[in-house]
């Protein structure tokens, strides 16, 4: 596919992605930080559902030999240190790299500064890649998947893991129905004093208008 085709494809797919992020409120800072504070589980519910769906998709596409997988490397140093820094950044931003764009689109103007900071963060890594990678070079096991280390075909493992995730999702929803977790404005934030908001006390969550 040519560059123009890829750009149009990306825009159309992004449009769908952005609608899903805004509607599910997984782009709300209150929902994202709320997940890290174990106040709301909306983000985990969406994340696990997307992963389970992707597992079924790839079990089929890769199982029939229609696509190649492109797993990222298991490099212990970069993955653990980078992951920790990334997580800290997500908490400070109240966004992930993708959801920062959704926040900006939905109207949160501070997200423009998350994006700008992100561009400079990526630039800093680009300029100091050799030094940073050298510092963290340890335990590189290459691009391995569970199917490489277990004597079971990818499609079997993928479907089994998807089934496990579905069980977790059902348990999460039984424990805390998603509508009770949204908060009055769908922002994952409750009225009253901070810290008093509890999921489950607001069954009408997400249906009242958002104060702008």
């Amino acid at each position: 596919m040519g560059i123009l085709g890829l750009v149009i494809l990306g825009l159309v797919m992004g449009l769908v992605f952005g609608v899903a992020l805004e509607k599910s409120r997984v782009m709300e800072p209150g929902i994202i930080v709320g997940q890290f504070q174990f106040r709301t589980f909306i983000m985990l519910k969406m994340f696990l559902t997307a992963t389970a769906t992707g597992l079924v998709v790839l079990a089929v596409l890769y199982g029939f030999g229609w696509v190649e997988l492109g797993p990222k490397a298991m490099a212990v140093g970069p993955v653990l240190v980078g992951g920790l820094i990334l997580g800290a950044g997500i908490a400070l931003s109240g966004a992930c790299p993708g959801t920062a764009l959704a926040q900006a689109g939905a109207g949160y103007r501070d997200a423009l500064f998350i994006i700008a900071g992100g561009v400079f963060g990526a630039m800093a890594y680009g300029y100091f890649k050799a030094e940073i990678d050298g510092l963290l070079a340890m335990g590189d096991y290459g691009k391995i998947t569970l199917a490489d280390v277990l004597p079971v075909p990818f499609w079997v493992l993928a479907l089994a893991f998807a089934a496990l995730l579905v069980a977790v999702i059902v348990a999460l929803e039984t424990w805390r129905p998603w509508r009770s977790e949204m908060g009055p404005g769908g922002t994952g934030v409750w009225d009253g004093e901070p810290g008093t908001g509890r999921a489950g006390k607001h069954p009408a969550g997400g249906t009242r208008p958002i104060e702008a």
Partner: protein
Amino acid sequence: MPTLTDRVWSPYLAGVIIGLLQIPAFLLADTALGASSSFVTAAGFLASTVDSGVAQIDYFVSHMTSGKYFWQSALVIGIAIGAFVSARASRSGRPSFSGAWTRLVGVRSFWARSAMAFAGGFVMLLGARIAGGCTSGHGISGMAQLAIGSFAAVAAMFAGGILVASLFRRA
């Protein structure tokens, strides 16, 4: 039946939709869903306006010439447009920054929150590029490929997030 004018959809519907996006990603774009590489593309083009040495840095050059990074850059722009359309269609206007921040860290001015947002964005993308992916690339896509490195990255990401969020007040 969920519509564009709904204020909220279930996270499960959104998750299935996003998971299904892997089909065109793998079949047509020959890659998996991801977001953080596009920041390297933007950084490369921005840096190249003041630094001609960027053309000698392979990491920037590959992100400025490969079709899959143009696809991903278009994807994140599409995310902003999609969220705009969705918020407009459901009349879900947003203030300049989420009220969650006042509760979490006591910040009341837009500029104070914006400084925090800039720092957060910087740390976030630095970490994502060190790890080689973000919540999309390592999370949704890496785990769907059963990549062992991605399981480790997601665990570390949650650990870092939980640690910092524990320093905030509970909203």
